[in-house]
């Protein structure tokens, strides 16, 4: 079949927006592979914190680079639907996605992979192997290294918010211990919001106890900085990115997730302060 033949197929050439028939048509088996790999890529991006426009573009780029003429993609907060089109043939598939958390290493790897596919360096089979490898990436850094850095970062934030040196030291202790608890809970598959509340509770209890020892004159800065590693930065920024580009459903869902996380932090802190008896600061 030549390019002209494909372009004149009834029903396919009608839509001027879809540049169909510019590539050799894929058979059903190949098309199945293309949609599977594209959705896999989309799943990784949605799971680990990319915004909707980025996911749509990357899935589309991967599908077309692997030989499909066009992809239509629908992204909801917890599923992706895609249709691959090649010549007269098309296939549609849904993939359920559960948002796990942020993992920038995986996002960076997907971007490297898509560049390689577009330059024609890797074929379908190598893409599958690469996606498998990327899916298995967990942590770049050692667990204790992360705990130490989170402690330092929260202590630094305490100082930036105006805390005194005792408050900075107390923040380091409270947030490091809380981060350790968070990692432990993450391994137990608790609901993410319960996890956030429990982490904020631990940070709150430690800071409140230290406040009751009256070591610091800036208790406010200590209490607020010790839970800042839970701050929902990625959902809030992605919410704005999505909303600005007209992806209102995912945008609102992400914004609401961010608000729920903020409320969970507040709940954990409040419970801690009630327990230890620090009130009216």
């Amino acid at each position, binding site marked *: 079949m030549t390019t002209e033949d494909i372009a004149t197929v009834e029903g396919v050439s009608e839509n001027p927006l879809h540049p169909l028939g510019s590539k050799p048509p894929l058979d059903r088996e190949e098309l199945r592979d293309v949609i599977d790999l594209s959705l896999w890529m989309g799943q990784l991006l949605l799971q680990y914190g990319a915004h909707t426009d980025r996911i749509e573009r990357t899935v589309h780029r991967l599908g077309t680079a692997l030989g499909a003429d066009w*992809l239509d993609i629908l992204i909801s907060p917890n599923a992706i639907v895609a249709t691959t089109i090649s010549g007269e043939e098309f296939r549609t598939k849904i993939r359920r996605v559960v948002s796990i958390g942020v993992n920038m290493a995986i996002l960076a790897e997907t971007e490297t992979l898509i560049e390689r596919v577009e330059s024609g360096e890797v074929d379908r089979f190598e893409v599958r192997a690469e996606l498998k490898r990327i899916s298995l990436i967990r942590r770049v850094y050692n667990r204790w290294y992360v705990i130490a850095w989170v402690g330092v970062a929260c202590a630094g934030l305490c100082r930036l918010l105006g805390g005194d040196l005792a408050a900075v030291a107390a923040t380091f202790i409270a947030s490091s211990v809380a981060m350790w608890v968070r990692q432990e809970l993450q391994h137990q598959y608790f609901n993410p919001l319960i996890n956030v509340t429990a982490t904020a509770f631990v940070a709150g209890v430690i800071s409140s106890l230290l406040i009751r020892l009256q070591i610091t004159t800036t208790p406010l*800065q200590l*209490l607020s900085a010790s839970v800042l590693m839970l701050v929902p930065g990625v959902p809030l920024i992605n919410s704005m990115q999505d909303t600005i580009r007209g992806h209102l459903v995912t945008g609102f869902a992400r914004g609401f997730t961010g608000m729920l996380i903020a409320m969970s932090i507040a709940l954990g802190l409040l419970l801690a302060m009630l327990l230890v008896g620090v009130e009216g600061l």
Partner: protein
Amino acid sequence: MSTETLWVFLQDVILSGVVAAGFAILFNVPPRLLFACALGGAVGRVVRDLLMGGGMNIEPATLIGSLVIGIMGEYFAHRYKTLALIFTVSAAIPMVPGVFAYRGMLGLIRLSNATGETGLMYLTEAAINLTKTGIILGTISVGIAMPVLLFRRTKPLV
């Protein structure tokens, strides 16, 4: 500028870089990109500090600071061939309004137990602090999202 202000300023710059790097590690950013995250955090915060030192309110200063972070994020994303989000999220953390959020939350809780006399005071406290938190968080995300729209104006792909 006196030596003391200079010292405080320098301390803020270094701390912001450290904070941004710490959060980048929490978000599992690959080591080769860590320095760019720290740089973004430090520069964004410096811009905000300078503007606030010049008498600007915290909200517009935060907007301009996060616009700078957004532009730097786009530049780094282009240079390292990766996503701007990697740089912008951790760089925005040093500007998070922690104390306002905390005061707002505390105000709301006190409000529920307030009497007629103290109620107005707590209501004002909660309203002011929560509004400030909301506006600052909003300006951070708007500031970060805007530069992309200016630089990458391609025809919709999908």
